[in-house]
């Protein structure tokens, strides 16, 4: 469980005058469940990339616990992400040709951190997420099932932080409900800080802090009951 602290963060892209993202200060308590909303181009994706260390901030600091992502090299940011952050994307990014179980284990295998316990945990997670046959090729699953496999993958290493980018946007309403419930429940059970970019009202009601971005700035930050 890690807390997030952002200070004086600005992110600009070449050829654009206005910064894509500019956050003076943001603190997210460890273990909280935060929604990020905003129109297209409001800087949500950039925020996700910065929070996960996929991109390095050009100015300012992003701290997860004691680690300042801006000061880590690419390799160490990759390692930090692999160890601490579970990622769920809108379009799953599962690898066809591999089974559900293999997909859950893939990042661990590719990082040479595979252990027998890992396999047990993967099977347990697939069970929890409701995937009946762990050996089933992932491309034969329904979209809802695919996203649940992705959730299991994100949780495998007991990450301190789970970041989801529009996890329900490409699912139908019912599958979206299932995934939302699962994501929030498991993040709670695992004690992970959960940050979700979403417009899904059903998912929003499950999260207890809503941050609204507009033009790269936080224009609204609502907490507690008011958020629901």
């Amino acid at each position, binding site marked *: 469980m890690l807390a997030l602290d952002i200070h004086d963060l600005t992110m600009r892209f070449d050829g654009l005058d206005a910064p894509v993202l500019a956050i003076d200060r943001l603190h997210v308590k460890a273990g909280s469940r935060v929604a990020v909303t905003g129109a297209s181009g409001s800087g949500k*994706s950039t925020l996700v*990339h910065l929070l*996960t260390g*996929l*991109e390095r901030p050009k100015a300012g600091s992003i701290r997860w616990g004691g680690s300042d992502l801006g000061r880590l090299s*690419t*390799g160490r940011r*990759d*390692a930090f*992400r*692999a160890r601490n952050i579970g*990622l769920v*994307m809108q379009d799953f*990014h599962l*690898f*066809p*040709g*591999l089974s559900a179980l*293999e997909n859950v284990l*893939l*990042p*661990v*295998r*590719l*990082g*040479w951190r595979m252990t027998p316990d890992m396999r047990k945990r993967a099977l347990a997670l697939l069970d929890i997420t409701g995937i009946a046959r762990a050996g089933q090729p992932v491309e034969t699953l329904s979209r809802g099932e695919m996203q649940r496999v992705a959730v299991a*993958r994100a949780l495998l*290493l007991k990450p301190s932080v789970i970041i989801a980018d529009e996890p329900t946007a490409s699912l139908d309403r019912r599958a979206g409900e299932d995934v939302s419930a699962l994501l929030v429940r498991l993040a709670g059970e695992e004690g992970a800080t959960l940050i979700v970019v979403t417009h899904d009202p059903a998912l929003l009601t499950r999260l207890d802090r809503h941050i609204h971005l507009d033009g790269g700035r936080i224009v609204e930050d609502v907490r507690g009951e008011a958020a629901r």
Partner: protein
Amino acid sequence: MIGFILADLRRFKGGALAVVVLIALSLALSVTVTLQERALRLGSARAAEKFDLVVGAAGSETQLALSAVFLQPAPLPLMSGSVLADLASDPRVAFAAPVGFGDSASGHPVVGTTTALIEALSPKLAQGALFAHLGDAVVGSDVGMPIGGQIKPMHGDGESGGPVHTELAYTVRGRMAPTGTAWDRAILVPIRAVWQLHGMHGGGDDHDEDDDDHHPDDEGAQAGDATAAGPVAGAAQDKAPGLADAGGDRDHEGHAHHHHGHVDGNAPIDEHFDAQTPGIPAVLVKPRTIADAYKLRQHYRGDTTLAIFPAEVLTRLYATLGDARSLLLAIAIATQGIVLAAVLMVTIMHVGARQRQIGALRAFGAPRYSVVAIVWGELILLFLLGAVLGVALGYAAARLISGSVAARTAVHMPIEFAPQDLRLLLGFLLASMLISLLPALLALRHSPAQALRA
């Protein structure tokens, strides 16, 4: 890791297969060239090693070697039979065997010689016995005629349709063990039978009687005719078939007349030769020592005779072939270079198209080195498969070529790998390993964030 690579390759089956086939074909080309050149060299060296020294009439060294070792039909000039007599009685000679070409039966060359040569070629016969009578024959291991079978020799090499000798039919008495040389396809008969069949009794008794009857056409210059022509090289080699057709029973269009003697197939063979011995195209000589071999060669290199070490002549011939091999190999290696470049291009495009997947791998926690390892590993796997397939294909092609050569000439051309082939293969694999690094490293060029956004 391997599982992922295999799953990935399965997804791109068609492309992967095309790349493997491309690599395999280019490599097969070099493998075939290398193996076949070696087979040719080894095969003919082995075919020549039975014949230490060949003495013939002055003429082409290469032709003499090719005729004696590969039984290649060619118009060899004749030399005096006294050369054979001298060689046979020379203390430096273990044995000297005359060879007389010219006839054939069912496409097999009929070679007149002595039992000494048969014993040299096949110390133990596979079947039957040596010839003891003029009408006996010993066949090579590839000649499909049964013991006791009759052979009607035909004048010429069988393709130009010469007349059949009706005076004598040989009876197969023995079969040689396989020698891996052209002699496996030969039918060996007593040299005196060949002489008599062609009306040569030695001493130049009956020739040059009616030049009017002589057709100076090219057919007349064939090996067979030349062999049968006359006892003295000088008298016969230019107008080979200068013989009277004593029987008058044959006058085929386009063919010279032959003097057909009467041959008693039951007469015992006589393998003693003297100065009256009829002319012969070549004598195969087994010298007693290496020093003797050189002395003999020196002695018989003269105005009228020629002495060669066939192995040496062939080596010289293959030195020329070696240049051809270098050229072929250079072309084959250039082909590999083109294929490598093509594979590189395909992979770089492929990696570009997969930026998203590669970015996702990194986003979900795969370290950079494993991304490099995946792209690299996929390529290496394709190269390895291509290499295995290519070597197998090249080997198979070389075997096929050798097989067809053996079927035609009976010269066994062994397809063997040599240690330096391994170097060639390792060089290829090393090059492919280095080249595969390029697309692998290119896979890291885009940031995963860019890749995921696309």
